[in-house]
């Protein structure tokens, strides 16, 4: 689940909801926000062509969402009586997401630092105890560096593609 996409989805949905639920669905459908825009296009088609109720379709969409906080936020947005409720729901959801995003980042950093510490400790002790020859340290380190550079390049390429698309 991409947190940024979820935040953008809620932002657009709230924006459209200040007009009407149909407009909210339309706005997300037009945004090209995958995978939500595809779902919203399907909902629009189901309500406009097949004559299903938009509310029912949105409820089904919420039930099928794997990320429960997003489903709850959409449901409470749909139940929101006034524009103030919409703004409050949007604010609460995004604030929680920002906190979770930061916590996630903290965990990832802690894991990476611990992994670095563990790797170095294992390699130093294994080579000192004779489990691996010291000459094996260089290929292992080069391998690790290659993997990290490859991952970095893949990430930069994805970023570049995203910017090109925009």
């Amino acid at each position, binding site marked *: 689940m991409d947190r940024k996409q979820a935040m953008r989805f809620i932002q657009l949905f709230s924006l459209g909801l200040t007009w009407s639920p149909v407009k909210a669905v339309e706005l997300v459908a037009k945004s090209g926000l995958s995978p939500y825009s595809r779902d919203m296009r399907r909902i629009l088609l189901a309500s406009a062509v097949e004559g299903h109720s938009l509310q029912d379709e949105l409820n089904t969409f919420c039930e099928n969402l794997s990320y429960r906080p997003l489903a709850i936020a959409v449901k409470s947005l749909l139940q929101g009586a006034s524009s103030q409720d919409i703004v409050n729901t949007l604010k609460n959801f995004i604030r929680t997401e*920002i906190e979770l995003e930061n916590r996630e980042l903290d965990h990832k950093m802690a894991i990476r630092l611990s992994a670095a510490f563990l790797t170095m*400790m294992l390699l*130093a002790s294994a080579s*000192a105890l004779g489990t691996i020859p010291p000459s094996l340290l260089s290929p292992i380190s080069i391998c690790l560096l290659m993997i990290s550079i490859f*991952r*970095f390049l893949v990430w930069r390429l994805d970023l570049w593609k995203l910017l090109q698309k925009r």
Partner: protein
Amino acid sequence: METASKTVIVEALADSLQFNRNPVVALKQIALWNPEIRDLIMRAIADNETTRQIMEELRNIFGDYGPWIADILTSGADPVFIGKVLRDTASIMRVMDELDAERRALLRSRRNLTRFLIVILGVMSAAFSKISELLWYMILRNPYNSSLPFALIGAAFTIFMVEEVRMSLKWLVYYLIPFLLMTFFLGYLFG
């Protein structure tokens, strides 16, 4: 243009629409609020452009909200209702600006923390390389220079961390400087 003034302009647009009930007149009035958009709107009105065309020109100024505001203004709905929607849009814009600023501040603090962790990683790599050299010398009675492999392992994990906080490889400097300093210091200490 500042994001705050973007919100103020949308609110002004809602106000003038409630009085004038005409999107083009409302756009003309909000043009007075900002010199940057004044030229655009005046030129567009002089060329007899429609509201949608004017909004297309303003798209860059309103950013993500441009198409939405254009949609509202050209919907042909009751201007009072449009004014209400614009006011709600302005509230959402304000909340989003506030949350964006919060997110940026938190990310900045996480980046500072990461920078600090990378410095620690540099010190740690240097310490491990020198400790392993010492161990090899004590156990195997054979000197072996391990600075480069440990430097590369540290650099690999630094890149993993840099990638996570969406920064460039320039951040390797935060790793290399403490690594080199610590290596020289420990080298001098152990001989």
